[in-house]
């Protein structure tokens, strides 16, 4: 893969890794009395390893000019592998802590294995590690095809991908050793946050540069969604993480916000992370891979556009519904409720647009588990956006808030929508990128589909029950006007539901393990015949005016 880089790109890459390694060494040295030193070492070793690989390959022959007439897919391939790796880690840890809920002694008395440290490893692992890598990888693929333009250079996609994974490593390892700023889904501390800003800005510039080089007159809707994802996540990340570090030798920082302002900023971030990371980005994925796989035109161009603007505008206001019945002023809660209600319509517009696109291809949905993954994803997208808006209504929220219903809702979106569209996409992409006519085993794709779907249903049904039972137990009074159940009673009542949830999660983890095996076998072996049968899904030629890129000048 390094052989594809030009000589200049290789030198620049070495310079960057050396610079990053020096920053790591700085933290390891000045922060030696603090936890940050451990992260200094992590950064130093991470960068040194890459620098070593680069140096070893520096004398490889210069890549031929012919490569510029093909799309640049190496970072996408690496992104898919990394995404699956983080998926296995994040989902396994998730199921571990699910069992911990049923059997609290499952922590082995070790600090790193306590629930509070493992939970963010699970959430960051699946959202950023699995989801983020999938988004980065597929966005590189989609923007090149829909712009009919090669990536403007070969270094920045690698910087984005590897830099993002360094952020993920810092996040996950930090939680285990006790580094957190205690903001949900924004736990990493200031130095990791600053690093992500650098990576993300590069990502945005890369995307815009590719769009600027496009040879299609119009920008396809998938790119609108990907761009909204990149742009808004940058804004959210920067604002919510505004903080003052104690010193350059300390991992600890203090948020710029406090009290209810802090809570509102956090949930403006938290909800829009759902909106722009887990929704907009994956809608971009869906708008490319679903019609591509179904070989059907998008049902309605106009509905794509109206739903896009509906989602991006309305989502921004919905955050306060995470803070109903709190110190947050009621007028803010009102806006949160009403915008959440209005949000159903553009959300269902997108889900409907996806499902109606399948008109004329339903026989393919029946026969092709890959397309069925995407179809079910659209259904779960519709269901969980409806459920979310429903739970945002104050009286409903007074029952559901703080219960496991919320956890169930999140997983209906995460497992049913985000992960299903990703699996469907990967099952399309892996044969395309590695030039196979199909996946190694269609049966294993089917098996994965049914394992995952059964797992989700067990998971959701058990947590709906758990949440409603909890909510009712907490508000039941005796004839004397006193609480009928202690909190502990409600915890004990959860055991069977938590047990069932653990089973559902286990089935889901088993599903992704099947996927990993199937992807590995496709990449490694494929079949000789299938290689001959391979038909490229790409049409037309890549833009030829590439000569301005860094690579071409070499």
């Amino acid at each position, binding site marked *: 893969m390094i052989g594809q880089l030009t000589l200049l790109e290789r030198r620049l890459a070495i310079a960057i890794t050396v610079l990053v390694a020096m920053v790591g060494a700085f933290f390891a040295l000045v922060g030696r009395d603090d936890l940050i030193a451990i992260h200094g070492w992590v950064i130093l070793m991470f960068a040194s390893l890459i620098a070593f690989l680069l140096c070893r390959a520096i004398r490889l022959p210069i890549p031929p000019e012919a490569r510029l007439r093909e799309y640049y897919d190496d970072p996408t391939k690496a992104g898919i592998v990394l995404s699956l790796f983080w998926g296995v880690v994040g989902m396994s840890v998730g199921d571990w802590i699910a069992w911990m809920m049923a059997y609290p002694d499952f922590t082995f008395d070790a600090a790193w294995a306590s629930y509070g440290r493992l939970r963010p490893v699970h959430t960051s692992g699946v959202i950023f590690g699995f989801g983020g890598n999938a988004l980065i990888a597929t966005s590189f693929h989609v923007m090149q095809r829909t712009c009919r333009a090669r990536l403007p250079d070969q270094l920045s996609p690698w910087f984005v991908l590897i830099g993002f994974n360094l952020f993920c490593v810092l996040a996950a390892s930090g939680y285990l050793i006790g580094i957190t700023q205690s903001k949900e889904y924004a736990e990493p501390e200031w130095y990791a946050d600053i690093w992500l800003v650098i990576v993300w800005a590069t990502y945005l510039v890369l995307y815009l540069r590719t769009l600027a080089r496009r040879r299609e007159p119009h920008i396809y809707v998938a790119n609108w969604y990907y761009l909204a994802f990149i742009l808004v996540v940058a804004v959210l990340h920067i604002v919510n993480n505004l903080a003052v570090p104690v010193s350059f030798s300390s991992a600890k920082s203090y948020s710029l916000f406090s009290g209810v302002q802090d809570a509102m900023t956090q949930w403006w971030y938290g909800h829009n992370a759902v909106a722009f990371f887990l929704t907009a980005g994956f809608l971009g994925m869906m708008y490319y891979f679903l019609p591509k796989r179904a070989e059907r035109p998008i049902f309605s161009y106009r509905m794509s556009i109206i739903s896009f603007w509906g989602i991006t505008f309305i989502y921004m206001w919905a955050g306060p519904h995470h803070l109903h019945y709190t110190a947050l002023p009621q007028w803010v809660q009102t806006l949160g409720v009403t915008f959440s209600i209005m949000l159903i319509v553009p959300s269902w517009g997108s889900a409907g647009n996806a499902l109606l696109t399948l008109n004329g291809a339903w026989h393919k949905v029946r026969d092709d588990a890959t397309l069925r993954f995407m179809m079910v994803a659209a259904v779960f997208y519709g269901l969980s956006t409806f459920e979310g808006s429903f739970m945002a209504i104050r009286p409903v929220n007074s029952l559901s808030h703080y219960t496991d219903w919320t956890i169930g809702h999140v997983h209906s979106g995460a497992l049913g929508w985000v992960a299903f569209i990703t699996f469907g996409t990967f099952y399309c992409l892996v044969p395309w990128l590695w030039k196979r006519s199909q996946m190694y085993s269609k049966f294993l794709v089917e098996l994965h589909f049914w394992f995952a779907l059964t797992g989700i249903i067990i998971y959701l049904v058990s947590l709906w029950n758990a949440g409603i039972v909890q909510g009712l137990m907490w508000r039941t009074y005796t004839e004397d006007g006193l609480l009928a159940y202690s909190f*502990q009673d409600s915890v004990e009542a959860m055991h069977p539901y938590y047990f069932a949830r653990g089973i559902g999660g286990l089935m889901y983890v088993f599903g992704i393990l099947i996927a990993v095996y199937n992807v590995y076998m496709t990449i490694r072996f494929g079949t000789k015949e299938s290689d001959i049968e391979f038909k490229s899904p790409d049409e037309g030629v890549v833009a030829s005016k590439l000569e301005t890129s860094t690579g071409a000048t070499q």
Partner: protein
Amino acid sequence: MSVEERDRYTGHMTTGHSWNGITELNSRVPRLWYICFAIAFLFSVAYWVLMPAWPGMESHTQGLLGFDQKKVVKQQRIEAEQNTAMWRDQITNTSLSELADNAEVMTLVRRAGPALFEDNCAGCHGDLGQGATNYPSLNDDAWLWGNEPESIYKTLQHGINSGHSQARIAQMPAFGNSGLLDSESIHDVALYVQSLSNPLIGNGSNVSELLQVNNGKSVYQAQCVACHGSNGQGNPLFGAPNLTDTHWIYGYPLKTLIETIVAGRAGQMPYWEDRLDDNLLKILSLYVPTLSEDAEIHHSDDRTKTDNS
């Protein structure tokens, strides 16, 4: 290159654009979309008119309903008090000893007690009051400050070593760390304390042990009697535990006893008068003694296990 085509399946025209083979139909947005959005928007407008909604420079729109969640909470609290009115006055105005004799009140106590106890006390004392290492059991017959509802009420109100100005104070001095006793005396007195509840220790069959126990006894008489009494029976006035029974808070092994004597003990119980309504404290004071009654009936097996620890 923009060529519109008719889609054979739906009959709609495409927009004429193609992105790597993906096309889009130029079909209308279904009317249902607009209807649903109109309904959602009108619902929102109505909500904004009725409820506090949009911010202005000085304040925010108050809404026609005059709804205010602070008022709602106040109202709900009043209702909650009304729901407890039927027994509240009786409990407020009656002494604990009288309440304990009232069968109707005790029925209420047994109904309300478990949830109250589990929410507030079980974290340390266990859901059945069985205690744990370092946390006294409440379902046996060993009591540091007595098991009359009045004593329990006082403990709940002010706590033990809690920092409250009227807290019960109970501190076992650190005889070892303060240099009051040398390690040999500490060992011997610990052995003597063990012998108080275990007739097998210092019974004469082992001469050196007998000598140590005797030495321990004289140390005990000099240092420990003031609180634990001449026979080790304890004293509820100081919260000094009885040393002759088989109930141990910190543990019975010699090593633990030596730790206790070397470093002292000052167990803490928080005070509850700021956190729980006085009536609820009374209910809990009446409920706690029933734990040992229930334990006699249901949990005699568990108890023997805890006692031997």
